């Protein structure tokens, strides 16, 4: 009974291609629609703070006087709501996920001033969740 019922599946699994991607040997291709992370364009932003006000998880902080826009990658849900509220088109969505945290921070989560994060190397224009010397 068992072989009759499952034989075909077993054969396919034995001789077919694996269902998983051999990451990191083979890079996982993102789809054009994949919501990876938020990309910020400093040149067009007028620091209106709209995105910071409307973000459901309060991941964005905008300092009008200092002209800094910051995002906490760990809070961001990549829901793209900020993109839809920004009327300067300063924000967009890229397929790549935000870079991982590579260093342990001292009581990271509890220091309000650290939550905003610093520049990620290699991802120009993106501010995020990484340390300068990491």
């Amino acid at each position, binding site marked *: 009974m068992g072989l009759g*019922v*499952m034989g075909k*599946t077993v054969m396919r699994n034995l001789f077919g291609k694996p269902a998983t991607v051999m990451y990191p040997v083979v890079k996982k291709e993102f*789809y054009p629609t994949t919501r990876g992370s938020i990309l910020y364009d400093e040149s067009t932003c007028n620091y209106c703070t709209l995105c910071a006000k409307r973000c459901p998880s309060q991941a964005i902080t905008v300092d009008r006087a200092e002209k800094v826009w910051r995002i906490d990658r760990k809070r961001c849900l990549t*829901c*793209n709501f900020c993109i839809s509220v920004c009327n300067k088109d300063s924000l967009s969505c890229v397929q790549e996920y935000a870079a991982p945290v590579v260093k342990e921070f001292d009581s990271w989560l509890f220091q309000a001033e650290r939550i905003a994060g610093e520049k990620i190397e290699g991802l120009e224009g993106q501010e995020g969740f990484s340390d300068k010397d990491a």
Partner: protein
Amino acid sequence: MGKRTVVPFGPQHPVLPEPIHLDLVLEDEKVVEAIPSIGFVHRGLEKLVEKRDYQEMAYVSERICGICSFVHGHGYCETLEGLFQVEVPDRAKFLRIMWGELSRMHSHLLWLGLMADAFGFESLFMQAWRLREKILDIFEQTTGGRIIHSVCKVGGLWRDVPEDMLKKIVETLEGMEGELQELANVFLKDYTVQKRTQGLGKMSAEEAFECGAMGPMLRGSGVAMDMRGLGQSGYEHLKFDPVVEQGGDCYARTNVRIREVFQSIDLIKQAIGLMPEGSIENKVKGSPEGECLVRMEQPRGQVIYYAKANGTRHLERFRVRTPTFANIMPLLNMLPGCDLADVPILVLTIDPCISCTER
């Protein structure tokens, strides 16, 4: 009468995917009573409506559940649309049906996998999840997210799906049907699987109805109750008959879910066939006011959303009654009299989603 022992079961347990706690009172190997306790993953999402703008809350409500996230987002938006009294365009309705049914497929396939895992059939578990992966890929290609889709908004949708993608979805689903049938055959015809599920956790139609069972639990006992038959949110245009099985045991409930996967494929094909061109959104303006209650069919059963608004940007009250909450009562009815080894299967047969129960 043998000596009674109390065995604590959960919330962290190797065979339990969900944080429910049961105190099982045993006499030898037989369960005589089960006392549940829940509340381990309460997140206060209902309270959060008072702090979040109603549009932002659509994203939060998706996070009630990690499996039927689309249905929760959809349900929330539909409740708010009831408050605003806006009708969403037909295209958006059919796209919502499509994603809703895809969610049902992915939820049922996930459940089939977990069920196979519960009776120790590891390769069947992986086979079910392998098929589920294709659905998740469709989700990623159409909404941008695999689990959390963030595609519903009050008044419509954020994203449209292009025609060629719709064609591709139909092709993928049609290609899956053969493999699904092979999977179904193992669940329904294999001797070992039958031994573990047949006659276990029997519930008659009256009993299931009396203790308020929902969804496949109820339909597995022969009661044809399905909220998709209410004729709302676009289902009125589709040919739809609830899947009903008479057995009332774990086998019948497995059968209901398997047949629902095939039914979902059919519904998606119908919805895509009927989908008109046009806009996907009717803009809403202002702030909501009044009260609204919406009933919907989630993969696990009937879910109820209630919202009360007072004319500000924040709702006053939002309530979600999820099907798992209703299904805990039948579970407690089924447990006495069963063997300890069958407890994981009985807990799984209600398709528990404790995280959405506790919100």
